[in-house]
């Protein structure tokens, strides 16, 4: 009986391979993860055929304002005319702007303030992150407001191949 008890006490798991794996996983997550920016809202971006979109890390756009056009439709779409193709909000710098009706004055002043804060240079650009389901009617006022605010450059977010 005493010998059996000693055998059981000596039994231990070899933890080294498991710790190795855990460290590998940790390293993977630490190196690949990027903290989510509050300026970016999850939207379903368009994925054009043979996308010519330039990857974010290859661009040098120091001064920009990101406008997220968030869809009212759920991800799997909807046939409800009340939400179909509609935008629920424009999210700029963590602030929401109404879409129905579009408050052009508020949009203009927000974009102008962003441009002024960006150093008022010609390189300043508007970055449109629009949900692919939203109709163009919600983008046109945005472009007009940006034009009125003196922004001449625009980047359209799309998925990269």
């Amino acid at each position, binding site marked *: 009986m005493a010998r059996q008890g000693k055998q059981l006490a000596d039994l231990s798991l070899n933890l080294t391979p498991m710790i190795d794996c855990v460290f590998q996983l940790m390293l993977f997550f630490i190196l690949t993860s990027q903290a989510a920016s509050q300026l970016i809202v999850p939207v379903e971006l368009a994925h054009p055929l043979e996308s010519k*979109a330039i990857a974010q890390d290859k661009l040098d756009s120091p001064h920009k304002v990101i406008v997220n056009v968030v869809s009212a439709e759920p991800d799997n779409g909807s046939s409800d005319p009340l939400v179909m193709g509609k935008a629920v909000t424009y999210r700029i710098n963590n602030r929401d702007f109404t879409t129905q009706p579009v408050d052009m004055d508020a949009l203009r002043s927000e974009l102008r303030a962003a441009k002024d804060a960006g150093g008022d240079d010609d390189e300043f650009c508007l970055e449109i992150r629009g949900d692919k389901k*939203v109709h163009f009617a919600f983008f046109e006022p945005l472009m007009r407001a940006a034009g009125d605010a003196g922004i001449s450059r625009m980047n359209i977010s799309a998925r990269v191949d």
Partner: protein
Amino acid sequence: MEGDESVHYVPPRQRRVRASRQVQPPLTPMIDVVFQLLLFFLLGTSFREQEGQLLASLPEKGGITASEVIVQELNLEIHAAGAMGVRYYVRGENMGIEGSGESLKSAANELHQLLVERRRKQTGTELSVFISPAPDVRWEYVVEAFNQAVRAGYKKVGFVGGE
């Protein structure tokens, strides 16, 4: 029974070696923390599709109206075809390009071919593309048209205001 150690003689040198071998930092708290971190990353990570930018320019203050567009420019109209479909129409062409569902990709390819053809025919000044989407066109088709124009090699691609 005092134990084996008191019975057997162990030389001091061997005792020192044995003592140094037995020194081991406590790994349990470190493993605990590592597991906590791993759990945080596993639960908190959501993989995002890679995102890029199509570079464009905005219309001048007040916008460009359709009537102001010079005839030589290439005008690409986009209309909705049903709830989910699209119809691209290049002014000057007899037929539009229509696509919906499975045929969206072939429509995009067809549009690309058309744009390449028109660019090849153009001699002298560089041709600009003006896109005028209808208000009820889905944004993905606008981005698609823009992308196909860039893909076809046009340097100047812009939007035309509807008013």
